[in-house]
């Protein structure tokens, strides 16, 4: 295939259209059902008691008081917990973390479940858990990066980044005419999807039926099956909707496993919904980082080295290190590159993947450091990035599968009005006297694919049923995947019934890594093509078909008809072919995955450029983002309306990272002091300015047959640095600690 196409890639009539969400009516009427909306007959409510210390042991609990509370049915503690068949420390299922399920009386982090109370009502279970009043033997907790020595990252794999070096780093440092050596810190952040983790578990013999939010049906089934010693096919998960995931709902979390265990123990359905406060502990978070960036450039402003060291937290009992230093490795054409990671073991719940894991934190530091070097070099920040534009992947030299980043820079800059930017900081004020600043950042995110399967069934009435266990956590899978399926079958969208959100369907893979549309969509596309291929064989063998005898041809389906490719004069209606063949439905199957050789041949990333305007009150130090323009190139956009919403959402996460989110630890108790929405700030509507997204056209003939990359995470990536740089431009202050707060503007 050519590296560039003269004309935009054509696909069917649905893809590329701003189709309105197919689940819209269900969501605006309250009909959309989430896990905790289910209450099967005979159900008990479960509430767990969280540890009030971060390190030590539970020495006593008042189980008598809890059991005596009216309505309480069972109190489960480490002393009487029923056996679990699987080892809670086993990590054999992909993306799994070690879980805390009352296996002993050790407290490893604040908020860890120390007992579970089952009761007839939520009120009784809540009060029962409160009455337990755990007593502790307390040890001094370690909850910030300064509280323990760093150590090498254990192992290699998911959340265990390897160190990398490309080129001669020492020579790169020596060759630098100008360099910066700066350290940025980022705070611990908690996903806080609006829907707290919840589960409704029912056992029937050795079959387990679950209403639980999941970003990965097959992996979740495998996980629960392993903990309970049953085959994965005995686990049914129903999850038509997730109330947000952001990386925290891919695999079974400890409290959810406890609820399943309790349901088996009492022989009744059990519902457990985490409280908001309980979302700060056992269900993952983005670990705090301390990143040192040493970057240098020659006299022409060309980077000679990017040397990125990251120290990030992990827990005492598992390994996940925010892979922040990876974020600087695929972007700028530096002569030498190095990424190194170290871990600090703290008494916290294990960190995990949270929207743009690694890229969000790493890019925040990198993009600010880039601006520091641009300023030291006397070069405009955009010009500095253009001078260091990588035509091939730095370090590896691999060609990019596509890279329209230059267009992102130019279109974004033009829309924003960047060319009018004064270079000196602190020189712009708006009409009301607020310090005004403009900053920018580059966005980069990999375009991975996982593995998925799908099934497509064409019926003699000309409609189709397409199926995959895709998860829609808000990104729009219900709609975008159906658009892909319709096009692959050559049918109008309304003729396609799309089934997803249930574990009995073909494995839809993982809704994560910004790879779900590419992967599940790829499987649906392949399944549709399989139907088309079979239908072509039937038609070619059918003397009554206009396509008769076209046996060696390629067939394409469009507008409900089957055509011989390259011969528009011959066609037959899809339904007619089936009817003449007896009317039985025709089923095709497909897989979505990327061949290893394709993955090796090209570097595959989405790109973007984000431009931010901030206003800072010179007296109060209050910071507001007044304008954000993001230009992104992410391959084929299946649904521009939904993609824009994803990118807006990502950019708002960028605002949140830059200015709002931070878990604050009490270093005496090890508890998070602001474990609620009053103290843990995320943007509200008034914090969000006018946003603009430009979707830059990009054809990618290599990334997958659909040309789809993904837009779920990249929005956050460039935005954080852009805001940090805009604050510097507004005030002359360079703050190297995220989130940037009023206190950073004072003194």
């Amino acid at each position, binding site marked *: 295939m050519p590296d560039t196409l003269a004309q935009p890639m054509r696909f069917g009539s649905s893809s590329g259209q701003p189709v*309105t*969400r197919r*689940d*819209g*009516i*269900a*969501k*605006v*009427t*309250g*009909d*959309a*059902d*989430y896990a*905790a*909306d289910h*209450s099967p007959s005979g159900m008990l409510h479960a509430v767990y008691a969280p540890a009030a210390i971060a390190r030590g042991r539970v020495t006593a609990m008042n189980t008598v008081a809890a059991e005596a509370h009216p309505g309480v049915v069972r109190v489960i503690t480490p002393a009487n917990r029923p056996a679990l068949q699987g080892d809670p420390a086993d990590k054999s299922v992909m993306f799994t973390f070690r879980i805390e399920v009352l296996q002993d009386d050790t407290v490893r982090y604040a908020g860890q479940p120390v007992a579970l109370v089952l009761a007839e*009502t*939520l*009120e*009784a279970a809540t*009060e029962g858990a409160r009455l337990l009043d755990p007593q502790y033997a307390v040890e001094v907790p370690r909850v910030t990066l300064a509280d323990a020595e760093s150590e090498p990252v254990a192992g290699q794999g998911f959340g265990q980044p390897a160190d990398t070096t490309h080129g001669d780093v020492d020579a790169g440092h020596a060759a630098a005419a100008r360099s910066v050596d700066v350290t940025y810190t980022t705070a611990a952040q908690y996903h*806080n*999807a*609006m*829907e*707290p983790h919840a589960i409704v578990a029912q056992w029937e013999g050795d079959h387990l039926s679950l209403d639980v939010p999941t970003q990965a049906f097959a992996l979740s089934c495998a996980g629960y099956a392993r903990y309970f010693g049953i085959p994965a096919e005995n686990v049914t998960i129903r999850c038509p*909707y*997730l*109330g*947000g995931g*952001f990386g925290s709902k891919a695999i079974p979390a400890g409290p959810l496993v406890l609820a399943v265990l309790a349901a088996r123990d009492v022989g009744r359905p059990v519902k457990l919904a985490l*409280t*908001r406060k309980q979302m700060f502990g056992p269900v993952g978070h983005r670990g705090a980082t301390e990143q040192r960036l040493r970057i240098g450039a020659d006299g022409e402003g060309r980077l000679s080295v990017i040397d990125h060291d990251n120290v990030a937290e992990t827990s005492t009992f598992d390994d996940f290190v925010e892979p922040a230093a990876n974020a600087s490795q695929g972007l700028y054409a530096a002569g030498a590159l190095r990424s190194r990671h170290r871990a600090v073991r703290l008494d916290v719940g294990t960190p995990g993947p949270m929207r743009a894991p690694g890229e969000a934190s790493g890019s925040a530091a990198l993009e600010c450091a880039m601006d520091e070097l641009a300023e030291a070099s006397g070069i405009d920040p955009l010009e500095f990035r253009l001078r260091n534009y990588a035509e091939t992947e730095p370090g590896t030299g691999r060609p990019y599968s596509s890279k329209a980043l230059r267009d992102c820079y130019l279109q974004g800059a033009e829309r924003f009005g960047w060319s009018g930017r004064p270079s000196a900081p602190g020189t712009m004020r708006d009409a009301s006297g607020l310090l005004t600043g403009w900053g920018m950042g580059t966005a980069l995110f990999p375009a991975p694919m996982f593995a998925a399967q799908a099934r497509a069934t064409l019926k003699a009435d000309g409609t189709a049923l397409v199926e995959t266990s895709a998860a829609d*956590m*808000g*990104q*729009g899978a219900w709609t975008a995947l159906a658009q892909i399926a319709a096009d692959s079958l050559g049918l109008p969208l309304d003729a396609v019934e799309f089934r997803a959100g249930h574990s009995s369907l073909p494995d839809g893979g993982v809704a994560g890594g910004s790879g779900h549309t590419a992967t599940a969509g790829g499987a649906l596309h392949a399944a549709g093509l399989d139907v088309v291929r079979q239908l072509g064989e039937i038609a070619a063998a059918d003397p009554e078909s206009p396509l008769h005898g076209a046996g060696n041809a390629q067939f394409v389906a469009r507008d409900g008809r089957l055509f011989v490719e390259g011969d528009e004069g011959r066609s037959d209606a899809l339904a007619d072919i089936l009817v003449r063949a007896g009317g039985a439905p025709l089923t095709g199957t497909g897989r979505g995955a990327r061949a290893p050789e394709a993955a090796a041949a090209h570097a595959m990333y989405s790109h973007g450029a984000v431009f931010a305007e901030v206003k800072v009150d010179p007296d109060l130090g209050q910071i507001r983002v007044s304008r954000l323009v993001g230009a992104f190139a992410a391959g084929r956009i299946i649904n521009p*309306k*939904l993609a*824009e*919403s*994803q990118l*807006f*959402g*990502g*950019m*708002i*996460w960028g605002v949140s990272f830059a200015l709002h989110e931070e878990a604050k630890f009490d270093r005496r108790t090890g508890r998070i002091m602001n474990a*609620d*929405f*009053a103290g843990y700030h*995320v*943007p*509200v*509507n*008034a*914090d*969000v300015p006018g*946003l603009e997204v430009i979707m830059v056209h990009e054809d990618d003939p290599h990334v997958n047959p659909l040309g789809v990359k993904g837009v779920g995470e990249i929005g956050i990536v460039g935005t954080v640095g852009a805001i940090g740089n805009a604050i510097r431009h507004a005030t002359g202050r360079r703050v190297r600690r995220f989130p940037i707060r009023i206190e950073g503007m004072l003194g």
Partner: protein
Amino acid sequence: MPLSMTLTLNGAARDVVLDDPRVTLLDLLRERLDLTGTKKGCDRGQCGACTVLVNGRRVNSCLTLAATLDGAEVTTIEGLGTAAALHPVQAAFIEHDGFQCGYCTPGQIMSAAGLISEGLDAEDPERIREGMSGNICRCGAYHGITLAVQEAARRMAADGQEDAA
């Protein structure tokens, strides 16, 4: 200790026997009356996912003890409009993609309906953003939410139905 009360729920009179004085309006709706459209996001009045209208005003149902509502008129998302006859706010949320995961959406919509009936100026987006800031959307659908509220307010003003909620 059962407590008997009567309230008007989505336009219909309901006799409710409370089994427990600790029950909030939110848990009454969700766990006892099978009205699960109203969502629990924080149970602390900090996120707005549980917003309903009580006597025409928006309240956090998680902070409202059910026992205090004898004689009250309560409107939830289930009572605002139907799939066949959407309320203008619901229709505008779909049109402007004012949601992603949908979990905060019933609260956003009830809050928007309440805000409009408070006499919102549809041409003042800053006021809309402020007035909708008790409702957190973690997906970040604020851009569409603001546009949706604006459009619904205009449409309802034109139709003279600000109090339709």
